[in-house]
């Protein structure tokens, strides 16, 4: 299998996936089978928190794929995450059915409140899980494709591209804030009841979502590894370092960028879709430009250009965030900013750069060995 071979030589990734597997076994046991009185008991709150971190980690992997390996500093990946989240949120809204405050079997509460008489066309199909799941991937992927097609074809690169991606997420935020858009405006989508018939409040469903996040992270990681260890991945790194040179070799740089960028956006959408049922709400705040910047910081802190570094960064920073915002909320942004400055100055390769020696002189890439 190409996916398994993609891990060859990726020691950090092997360790990361092993730990992920371990966590996926231990967490359900500690939550479901250990009595609540035991010190080993893991509360459902913690499980959900961990699940949230895993979706963030998947998002960070998606960002690292385009930033670390392709050199596109996207400051708008939060938008793709939020769009995936909205697609899932729409499905969860339709599942509420008659149990909403207004008891309308057809319309979500906010539409009844706004006096709408029928479901807007773009809500059709979202009562079906398969359709919503498809949209989770398609909507962010297509947006990234159209956006990338316009941007890469005009050879917009570097800081200019970063600024337009930032503008993209900001524009989407403003649009989603409007009630007329039909996505719940300011309040977003919430009050979810169940997913695929399972009650979202039950411990079992929470564990299920946690495991789904872990599986998505593992598969997403393997898929990204497959891309970066293929010849296309080497072309991507070449584009990052010397774009014009790659063009003269006869590669269509725009298309390479376009496909990898769209794939990364779809992956971010999947992360968003798993995030929403666990936190129980999606609102336009997820499009906030600051979110997209923050997730770039996760990647920088963990270690750009190593996919497992992105995973590590996302989990560490978010754990620190949970801790700090609990202890002294006003200090968090200073801590994050300080951490970013320190890492940039002292650890240009991120935390993984501390213990990862480059083994390139001895190891050989998968398909250029004789």
């Amino acid at each position: 299998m190409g996916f398994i071979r993609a891990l060859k030589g990726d020691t950090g990734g092997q360790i990361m996936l092993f730990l992920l597997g371990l966590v996926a076994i231990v967490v359900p046991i500690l939550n479901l089978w250990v009595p609540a009185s035991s010190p080993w008991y893991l509360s459902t709150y913690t499980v959900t928190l961990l699940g949230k971190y895993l979706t963030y980690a998947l998002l960070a992997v998606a960002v690292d794929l385009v930033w670390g390996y392709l050199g596109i500093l996207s400051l708008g990946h939060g938008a793709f995450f939020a769009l995936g989240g909205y697609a899932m949120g729409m499905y969860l809204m339709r599942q509420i059915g008659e149990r909403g405050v207004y008891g309308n079997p057809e319309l979500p509460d906010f539409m009844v409140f706004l006096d709408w008489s029928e479901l807007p066309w773009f809500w059709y199909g979202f009562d079906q899980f398969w359709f919503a799941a498809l949209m989770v991937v398609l909507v962010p992927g297509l947006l990234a494709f159209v956006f990338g097609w316009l941007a890469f074809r005009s050879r917009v690169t570097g800081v200019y591209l970063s600024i337009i991606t930032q503008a993209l997420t900001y524009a989407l935020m403003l649009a989603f804030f409007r009630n007329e858009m039909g996505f719940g405006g300011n309040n977003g989508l919430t009050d979810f009841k169940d997913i695929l018939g399972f009650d979202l409040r039950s411990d079992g469903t929470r564990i299920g979502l946690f495991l789904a996040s872990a599986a998505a992270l593992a598969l997403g990681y393997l898929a990204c590894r497959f891309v970066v260890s293929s010849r296309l991945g080497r072309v991507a790194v070449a584009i990052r370092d010397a774009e014009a040179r790659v063009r003269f070799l006869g590669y269509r740089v725009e298309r390479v960028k376009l496909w990898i960028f769209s794939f990364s956006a779809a992956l971010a959408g999947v992360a968003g879709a798993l995030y929403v049922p666990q936190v129980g709400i999606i609102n336009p705040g997820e499009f906030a430009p600051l979110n997209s910047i923050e997730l770039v910081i996760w990647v920088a802190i963990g270690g750009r250009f190593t996919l497992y570094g992105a995973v590590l960064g996302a989990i560490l920073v978010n754990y620190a965030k949970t801790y700090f915002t609990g202890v002294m909320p006003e200090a968090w942004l200073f801590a994050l900013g300080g951490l970013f400055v320190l890492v940039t100055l002292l650890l240009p390769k991120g935390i993984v750069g501390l213990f990862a020696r480059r083994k390139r002189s001895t190891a050989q890439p998968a398909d250029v060995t004789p």
Partner: protein
Amino acid sequence: MKALRQIQKAMRRDRQFGLMHSARDMAPDVSHGELLYLEDLNLSFDGFKAIDDLSFYLEAGELRCVIGPNGAGKTTMMDIITGKTRPDSGSASFGLNIDLLELSESEIAEIGIGRKFQKPTVFECHRVIENLELAMAGDKRVFPTLFAKLTGEQRDRIDDVLGIIGLTEHAYRDAGALSHGQKQWLEIGMLLMQDPLLLLVDEPVAGMTHQEMDRTAELLRSLAGNHSVVVVEHDMEFVRAIAKRVTVLHRGRVLAEGTMDQIQNDPKVIEVYLGE
């Protein structure tokens, strides 16, 4: 007049249309012996004539040196051939049949024109062997590249090129760790991997030691015959060592063309260039 030429061009029966053929399948028609035709090219930047009625012909298999003072239009000429810059007027064709002005940069690379830049730009994060792998001729679309595997034949080809450029022992080193001269050879190796019909080599020996220069001269001479080579170079000693025919450019025009001896005795050339 211009319109008439356009029509003439469109009516030519031997011309291949972009719609009907992808660039990969095109082969230049060299039945008249020439591989490259540049005719009446003009290009100005903000009123400065970088290229002024330039005409240049290159035979198949020839090794040609292009010299000229700074700003003579040497690099701009290369830019036009590779599609990086478009001329204001004139024509450029590869063989009799392929109009270079209608192709994109990557299409021009695909039909067999490879270029080595003035500053060596190898992919520093990749190993020597990976640099050659990326440069290899083949299907360079996104999905075939994603699933590409190295065949034994391709692997042999890489080994051959490693031998030609003398980097066999350094195959698994990062390209960034090579010396300046080795990077230049790697660049030439990357060109060879594309199986080009025409190699454009911009200042190959700038910054090289004498030994490295000798090896580069040997390398370029060994390439002529199988490939057509255009070398742009400042170093006269080096040009004398490799060139059979030399073209002197000055202010965007061809000032003189001939053997090195003819060039060196040409009073016009002495005045503008060698006499400095």
